């Protein structure tokens, strides 16, 4: 089966991803209904509390693709097989989306709730730093021209994502225990009953959506690397033929 026929017939979908996709859509609809209609507004935050059903999934789920990227990068450095590299880039891109959305939804939620778009608390600050670390990784994947250089250096940056994220989080937490005012704390509202159920459901839906995105992105990256590799035998034949014409015409004198 050639690459092109694979792409034309199935794209990157499979039974598994279709199931995942449908579950995600259904779950999102359920969360939307529950979040917007069925659950009541919060006593203090009123309707803006509904944003937690969007914000919390983002910030809960985001750590998983970051970890996957880091571990896949390590495994690529060990094993040097394209699959790990494809997994690393897929995980990093999905992670960046979730972290970015986490920051944005956090800002949107923060404004009506505490009156500010941004606050220097430990969670937000570490998340912002994580976002920048991921941007650095994605930039590393884009810049070098040679594929082998690109893959290798990105793998090193990716491998260091987990240690860097942990060190940054640790130092930011410690720093803020010394400087934090008591006024703005992000203690999550006490929730129970239907609200709690909706929240848990939204996190589950978040994981499903993350998985769906990752599988598709992984497959695209994998196919790209397959296409690049198939060219080698053809390239060898072309290269040898180059020499035939040159020798026949007596070289480039």
């Amino acid at each position, binding site marked *: 089966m050639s690459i092109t026929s694979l792409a034309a017939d199935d794209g990157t979908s499979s039974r598994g991803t279709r199931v995942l996709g449908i579950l995600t859509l259904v779950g999102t609809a359920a969360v939307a209904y529950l979040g917007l209609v069925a659950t009541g507004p919060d006593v203090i935050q009123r309707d803006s509390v509904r944003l937690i059903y969007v914000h919390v999934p983002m910030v809960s789920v985001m750590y998983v693709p970051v970890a996957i990227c880091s571990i896949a990068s390590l495994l690529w450095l060990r094993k040097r097989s394209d699959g790990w590299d494809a997994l690393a880039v897929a995980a990093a891109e999905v992670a960046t989306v979730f972290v970015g959305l986490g920051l944005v939804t956090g800002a949107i939620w923060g404004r009506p709730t505490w009156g500010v778009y941004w606050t220097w608390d430990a969670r937000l600050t570490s998340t912002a730093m994580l976002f920048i670390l991921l941007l650095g990784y994605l930039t590393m994947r884009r810049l070098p021209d040679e594929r082998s*250089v690109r893959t290798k250096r990105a793998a090193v940056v990716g491998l260091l994502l987990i240690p860097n994220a942990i060190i940054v989080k640790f130092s930011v937490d410690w720093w803020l225990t010394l400087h934090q005012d008591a006024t703005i704390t992000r203690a999550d509202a006490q929730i129970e009953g239907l609200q709690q159920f909706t929240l848990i459901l939204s996190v589950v839906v978040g994981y499903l959506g993350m998985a769906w995105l990752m599988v598709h992105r992984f497959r695209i990256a994998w196919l790209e690397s397959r296409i690049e590799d198939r060219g080698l035998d053809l390239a060898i034949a072309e290269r040898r033929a180059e020499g035939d014409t040159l020798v026949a015409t007596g070289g480039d004198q």
Partner: protein
Amino acid sequence: MWDEAVLVAGKDLRIEWRSKVALGQLVPFSLLVLVLFAFALDPERGVLSRVASGLYWVAVLFSTTLAVQRAFSIESADGARDALRLSGLRPASVFVGKAAAIGAQLLVLEFVLGIGIVVLYSLDVAGWPLLAATAVAATLCLASAGTLYGALAAGVRARESLLPLLFLPVVAPVLIGATEAFEAALGGVESEGWPWCGFLVLLGLVYTLLGAQLFGSILEES
């Protein structure tokens, strides 16, 4: 391995001695950053002396980025990178040697900058041992992380902006730790600063080990 590292460090420092880039450009640059901060903030009402520790380390961080770029740009001239691969030097030795040379330049820079900030921001200096120990520990972190990320950015187009993007978030904890330790020292509460200094030492060791391990892969083309 240590002989090789000394050889590489000696070579880098000899080049610096002949070209005087760190001394002639980076030191003035870092002092300039301090002056710019004074323009941006209010020099009259004691703001500068309150935030001096943080500003000092921000200036050092920016200068480190330049120092690292310089350290790797000398290797890009006329295929020195290939020659390093061919030379038979162990990559870990090259890493340690380059980091040591960068570290030495940073220590000189930090010393001069220290004098500069004391004068420019009218500081009362206290807690010498903590200040010195922190500077050494922070330099260890900056030099080793810088060498690692400098190698990653070397030879890549648009590397001038890639290196800061990669390097500065990674050393943000160093900024935090060094600033806290310096503030503790200057504020007379050294006991609060020593834990931060210890944190920096640990971080420096982690980066040195990681860098020595990973440098070989980065040096090779594929």
